[in-house]
């Protein structure tokens, strides 16, 4: 019996439920009625690359190694590389199914290039540039096969400019074309999916629709009934209607794919994170500067000529030149990770930061962050601060930020210099939340049920179980047995497989530190001068 994973990037019930109630998404309504639904809690950070990787590995970022779009190659480095499939240090549903001779189809998932050598077909998504898609498809020759399809148009399916507009915005005159492009784009991915389903007869078919995330970022105020304008202008009403058309079209595509999978298929709809409105923008590095943890170099000449929407190699290393490393103790390298890194070397020396000092800095920073108030209403800016150990326990935790934070209104970070520490947008924007979406329907799955919140790491065990495969013992997730009819679970109980060999933990430079006594003394003196030891 086939298993179908329909990924809806950033889907949230606060958007889907009203559209279902209004008859915009009738198929999703039927799927929920005939199946089980629940909230799906994402991971820290609730962000596309680490969250989808957690969904397909059943593990948290500290266990699989993906933390952000860009990430450190080595614990002590201030340079960040673009995250790719080579950063996924764990078995995945793709590899586990392939090893046991199940055939898979994986379409439009991030961190799938270079494509892993699976038993089946892969068309990577995420930040895969359309110009290189020929190289990214697996197996060789798949790209040429797909070129025979009218619907296969890589430029529309993987337009990176759309990613940028979703975050940085675009002129009002471009909104309508931008949404229309997403409607066409999802239809193209669905057509490729249905074509490959017919050709491949796969055991596991998975396709991800990422327009949900993009539209919600840019068009939240036209999508969320609570945020829509009460007296919309003509243009605003057009946008409300167009966003509704996107979700209506998506619903139709989901219906067609599920129909093709047949009545015996197990269908799982899942999102990598939820969504909600936000207005706050926290200029994290400027705050660190104000608190004395960060110093700008004043030498980032290249930044002056960058467009706000420029995403590329200049941005990967922006902080390297913008920051004075001889004095800086803590910094944020990317806005997306929602994290702060503490430097590996004691500023102004070649000595490595002792763990004691590092822990003290982390505690100080966390306390200061929790004390921050929003200028608009005096309420706390930060809801939670997690230490690296709390957020990322596992063999790869040394690659993650030392502190990760959750802004109270789901707000966003900026790493750029600013006179204002906390800015407020005029219009609400959509941004990521913890609470994503889970719907499942199929043989043995309860009908019309709502279950308490599941974790995103529970999806991989569920998919493996659906494929009749054992679940590796080292997955952080569990088989969500509460979604099954008891007799169905009794007939096919959970089977466990031995854990994969545990990778050797990456050791942070500080932990590997072995200093001569005089070196140690000199470094302690430097730390004392900086105020990090008493």
């Amino acid at each position: 019996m086939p298993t179908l994973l329909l990924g809806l990037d950033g889907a949230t019930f606060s958007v889907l439920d009203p559209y279902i109630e209004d008859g915009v998404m009738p198929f999703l309504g039927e799927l929920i009625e005939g199946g089980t639904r629940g909230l799906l809690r994402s991971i820290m950070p609730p962000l596309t690359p680490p969250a989808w990787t957690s969904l397909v590995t059943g593990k948290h970022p500290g266990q699989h190694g993906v933390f952000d779009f860009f990430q450190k190659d080595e614990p002590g480095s201030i340079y960040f590389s673009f995250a790719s499939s080579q950063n996924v240090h764990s078995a995945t549903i793709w590899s586990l199914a392939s090893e046991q001779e199940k055939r898979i189809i994986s379409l439009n998932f991030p961190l799938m290039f270079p494509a892993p050598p699976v038993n089946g077909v892969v068309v990577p998504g995420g930040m895969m540039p359309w110009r290189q898609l020929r190289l990214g498809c697996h197996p060789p020759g798949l790209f040429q096969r797909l070129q025979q399809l009218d619907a296969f148009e890589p430029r529309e399916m993987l337009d990176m400019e759309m990613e940028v507009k979703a975050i940085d915005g675009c002129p009002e005159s471009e909104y309508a074309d931008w949404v229309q492009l997403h409607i066409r784009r999802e239809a193209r991915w669905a057509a490729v999916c249905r074509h490959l389903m017919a050709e491949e007869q796969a055991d596991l078919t998975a396709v991800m629709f990422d327009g949900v995330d993009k539209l919600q970022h840019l068009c939240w105020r036209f999508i969320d009934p609570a945020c829509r304008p009460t007296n919309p202008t003509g243009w605003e009403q057009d946008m409300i209607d167009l966003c509704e058309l996107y979700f209506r079209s998506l619903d139709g595509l989901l219906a067609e794919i599920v129909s093709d999978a047949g009545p015996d298929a197990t269908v799982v709809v899942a999102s990598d994170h939820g969504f909600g409105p936000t207005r706050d923008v926290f200029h994290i590095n400027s705050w660190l500067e104000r608190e004395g943890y960060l110093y700008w170099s004043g030498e980032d000449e290249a930044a002056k000529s960058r467009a706000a929407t420029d995403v590329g190699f200049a941005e990967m290393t922006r902080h390297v030149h913008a920051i004075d490393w001889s004095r800086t103790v803590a910094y944020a390298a990317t806005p997306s990770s929602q994290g702060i890194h503490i430097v590996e070397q004691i500023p102004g020396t070649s000595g490595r930061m002792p763990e004691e000092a590092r822990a003290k800095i982390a505690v100080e920073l966390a306390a200061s962050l929790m004390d921050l108030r929003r200028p608009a209403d005096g309420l706390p800016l930060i809801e939670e601060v997690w230490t690296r150990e709390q957020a990322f326990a596992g063999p790869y935790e040394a690659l993650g930020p030392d502190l990760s934070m959750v802004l109270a209104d789901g707000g966003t970070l900026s790493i750029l210099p600013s006179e204002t520490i906390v800015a407020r947008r005029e219009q609400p924007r959509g941004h990521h939340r913890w609470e994503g979406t889970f719907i499942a329907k199929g043989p043995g799955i309860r009908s019309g049920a709502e279950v308490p919140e599941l974790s995103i790491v529970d999806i991989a065990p569920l998919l493996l179980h659906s494929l009749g495969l054992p679940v590796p013992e080292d997955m952080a997730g569990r088989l969500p047995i509460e979604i099954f009819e008891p007799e169905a679970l009794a007939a096919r109980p959970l089977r466990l497989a031995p854990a994969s060999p545990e990778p050797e933990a990456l050791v942070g430079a500080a932990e590997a530190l072995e200093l001569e006594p005089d070196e140690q003394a000199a470094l302690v003196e430097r730390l004392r001068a900086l105020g990090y030891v008493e």
Partner: protein
Amino acid sequence: MTELDPQVLDDILSLLGELKEDWDYEEAIEPQTRFIADLGLESLEIVVLSTMIQQQYGKLPFPVFFDDIGQRPVDDRDVTVAELVAFVSEHRQPISQEA
């Protein structure tokens, strides 16, 4: 300047030659061809291309390479095929000689 390893040059030209079929790029791709100004790539696409190149040549210090380019004046913030080949030639891991 680092010498261009003929094998690396050949590999990268071959790779680009295969890809350009999808780009509507009619001109010949040569060592002096620029990725952004001539081929029309976005900055991030060169970063992604580096991932593909590392699959063939092993891990390379691309962050430092991109850092150098990112610091250039905006009009010079581009990479020629020759620059990329020189970088790969200089930093590629030696191929083990099998008997």
